[in-house]
Structure formats: C-alpha cells, structure tokens
C-alpha cells in the first residue's frame, strides 16, 4: 500500500494567483517552494537567475512560500514582506533583496528594503502587523505539503517534482528534457 509517489505531482497548478517571471506561453514552468531564511534556497537563488538567462522565453519561473517557521524565526515575516511588496507591484525586487540579505531579515531590515524600493511604508507596515497575507501563505504551504514538498528548496518542473540536484547543470538538463 504505497500512497507516497516517488515523483509526486503538483496538486495546485501554477496560475494567475502565483508570482511568475517569464511568459505564460513558455513551454516549461519551473516552480520553487522556498524559504527566505533557508541557506540552501539562498544558494539556489543565483543559480535560478542563471537558468532563466540561459533558457530565456521557453521558461516561466514561479515561487511559492514554504517557510519552516520553527527552525527559521524570520522566514514567515520575510514571506509576508515579499507579499506586501507584491501588493505594491514589487514582489520580485523584494524577493531578490531578501535572498541577498538572508542574515538580515528582522522587522527593521525588511522595512528598510521596503523603503529602498520606494514602497508606501505605512501600508507595508500595517499589512505586516495585521498578518494580511496569512491565508495566502497557508495556501502556499499546504499546496506544497499536498504535493510532496519535503524540505526547501523543492522544485517542480511542469508539475512533476524534480528529485535531482539544483546545481546549474542538473536544472538545465531537467528543463531541456521538457523542451
């Protein structure tokens, strides 16, 4: 009786609800479940930027939050900061800043990044304080749990969990196999 699939499938497909980079018509969608305080996700971040450069318009990249809050005390707030920036149209800029500053994810830090991005700070702070994006973060997390995310980062390529490594070569190979 084996209910755990070796290559689990994504239960909630990438859609308009998601933060994406690249055209909707791209032949390959690469989805990451990540945590801004996870060092492995931090290592993967520049690699993913390279992957996007190399593959170009054939690739759409999407990111969902999977904060491991009990071992990463700032991960949840960082994810909220990304969403709050996203509400003002600057999700990816905040995303890059958070990964570039993984050891500076306190409240003052993220407000500083919001300020550097020229966000409406009052709105940003209010949204963090009110936990405005709790539902969204929970949705991301549970969609990951249901899809076989077992740690961070976990990647899905065209809806199938990528079980191999996430160095540049491994990711390129897996993506090219879909082209």
């Amino acid at each position, binding site marked *: 009786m084996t209910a*755990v699939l070796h290559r689990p499938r994504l239960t909630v497909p990438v859609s308009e609800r998601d933060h994406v980079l690249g055209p909707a018509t791209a032949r390959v969608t690469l989805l990451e479940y990540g945590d801004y305080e996870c060092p*492995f996700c931090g290592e993967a971040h520049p690699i993913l930027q390279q992957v996007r450069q190399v593959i170009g318009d054939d690739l759409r990249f999407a990111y969902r939050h999977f904060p491991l809050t*009990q071992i990463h005390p700032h991960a949840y707030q960082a994810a909220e900061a990304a969403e709050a920036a996203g509400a003002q149209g600057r999700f990816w800029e905040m995303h890059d800043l958070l990964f570039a500053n993984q050891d500076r994810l306190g409240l003052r830090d993220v407000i500083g990044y919001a300020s550097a991005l020229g966000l409406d700070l009052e709105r940003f702070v209010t949204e963090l304080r009110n936990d405005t994006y709790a539902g969204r973060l929970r949705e991301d997390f549970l969609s990951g749990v249901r899809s*076989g995310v077992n740690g961070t980062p976990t990647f899905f390529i065209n809806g199938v969990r990528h079980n191999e490594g996430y160095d540049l070569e491994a990711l390129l190979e897996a993506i090219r196999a879909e082209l």
Partner: protein
Amino acid sequence: MGEHRGEALQAGTPAPEFELKSTPDQSVRLGDFRGRRLIIAFYPADWSPVCTDQMALYNEILPEFQRLGAALVGISIDHAWCHVAFAQSRNLHFPLLADFHPKGEVAQAYGVYDDEIGMSERALFVIDEEAVIRWSYVSPIGVNPGADGILAALESMAEVPVPA
C-alpha cells in the same frame, strides 16, 4: 520498495504495544493514545541536515495532523538525552521516543529495523483509535517521505468531528 530489510507491518495489523522514554524521566506508551489516531515516524537518527529534515517538516505540519485528529511521535535509536537536545534545537512540539534499550526493539516489532546499519528505517505508520495500523510506508533511507501520504491516509479514514 525493496530497499528495506525487514517486513514492515501492514494495514490491518494490530499495532504492537511499546513503552519508551521521551525524556530521561518520562515514558510514553502506545496505550496512552487509545481513542485517538497516532502517526509514528521511525527515522534513523537525530541531527540530519536542517532544511530537509523530516522532523522539522512534520513539526511545521503538526496543526494539520491535529486537525485530522492525529497525534505524532518520532522514534529513533537515539538516547532520551540526545532527543531532548535535538528537540530543543529544532523547537519540536511533539515527543521523540528513545528506542535505545534494548536497542531497536520497537522498530523490530514493527518490522522496520535495519540490522546492517543498526538503525531503524525511515518508516511511517498511521494507527487508528483502536490501535490498528491503517497505513504504513517505508521510504528509501536517504529520502524524506514528506507528509502527503500521511495526510491522504488520515483523510481516507472515517471522519472525525472537527473541533469548532
């Protein structure tokens, strides 16, 4: 499958009773969970790498397990003192039980002890209110099995009243 050495107990089998230390001076018995659902996660050892750690993941999913009426325990051959340090460092909110003496006895009883390496396999059991195994799964030892299988098993069992 095929990677494991023993024969893991299958669905429909009564879950073997156990009494194991959760701390140096406290014990937990299977019987303590009678009337509730229980997830048992056997794992080889404490202190595996953080971000892909199975116990850290389950810790995060604990509210979802509880919503489905299930408690969770982790079992490995580590000593209770080791479990205490590990649980503190990872901020774990569920008991880790020490299958330490006689070493691996409970893992043996559930058919998931690997004699070659002297540790339990990475194995999951979902046990119902009557202490009958309803689902079991053995993962390749290096692979964190995640939680989707556990959740599917819990949901396939009869509905429990969800607390308001």
